[in-house]
C-alpha cells in the first residue's frame, strides 16, 4: 500500500483518519493530505491546522456503489471527526479498477 502519510508526528487527526479508514475500507491506496495551510484565515477555519483534508481512497468495497453512497460511507466512518475536528473534507473514492485506468 502506498501512502504519503508515513509520519503522523504531530498529526493526531490524520492518524485517526488513517486508522479508521484502513480498518473499515481495506484500501489499496490511501492518501491523506492536510490542506489546512491553503485555508489560513478563512472564516471558521481553526488555527490549529488539521482542519481541511483531501483524501484519496481506493477500495474494492466501492465496487458497484454510486459516488454518493461511497462518500456517505466515508462520512459515516469519520462522523465523530467531522463533528469536532474536520472543517472541510475533499474526497476521491475509487475502485482499484478505476484507479488503474487513471494511470497510463
Amino acid at each position: 500500500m502506498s501512502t504519503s502519510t508515513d509520519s503522523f508526528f504531530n498529526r493526531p487527526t490524520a492518524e485517526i483518519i488513517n486508522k479508521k479508514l484502513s480498518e473499515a475500507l481495506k484500501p489499496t491506496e490511501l492518501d491523506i493530505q492536510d490542506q489546512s495551510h491553503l485555508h489560513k484565515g478563512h472564516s471558521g477555519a481553526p488555527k490549529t491546522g488539521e482542519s481541511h483534508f483531501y483524501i484519496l481512497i481506493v477500495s474494492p468495497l466501492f465496487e458497484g456503489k454510486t459516488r454518493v453512497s461511497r462518500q456517505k460511507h466515508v462520512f459515516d466512518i469519520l462522523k465523530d471527526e467531522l463533528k469536532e475536528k474536520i472543517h472541510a473534507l475533499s474526497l476521491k473514492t475509487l475502485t482499484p479498477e478505476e484507479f488503474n485506468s487513471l494511470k497510463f
Partner: protein
Amino acid sequence: MSEKNIQDYIKQEISDSEVLLFMKGTPVFPQCGFSSTVVQILTQVGVKYKSIDVLSDNEIRQGIKEFSDWPTIPQLYIKGEFVGGCDIITEMYQSGELNTFLESKGIELQKPSI
C-alpha cells in the same frame, strides 16, 4: 420554523426547481471555495439553476444536512435527486457526465455564445 416545517420547506424547494443548489453565499458572492467551484461549473455548463444561501438561515443549514444525510455544503439537486457535493460535481463535469446527465433529464443547456 419547526423542524418538520423546515423539512417540508426543503422538500418543496427541491421539487419546485429543476436544478437547485444549496450553497454558502450567493452565485455572485460565494462565501466558500467549494460553493464557488460548483457555481463556476454550472455557469460553464450553461444550466439555469436556483440557489439557496444556507448562511442566511441556520435552520436550513442544519436541515439540509439532515434531509440528505450529507454533512457538507454545497449540495446539488437535479429534478428532485441529490447528485452530490463539490467533489462529485467536479468529477462529473470533468468526465462530461454532468452534461449527459442534465440532458438525459431533459434539462436545457444554453450553449455559450461565441
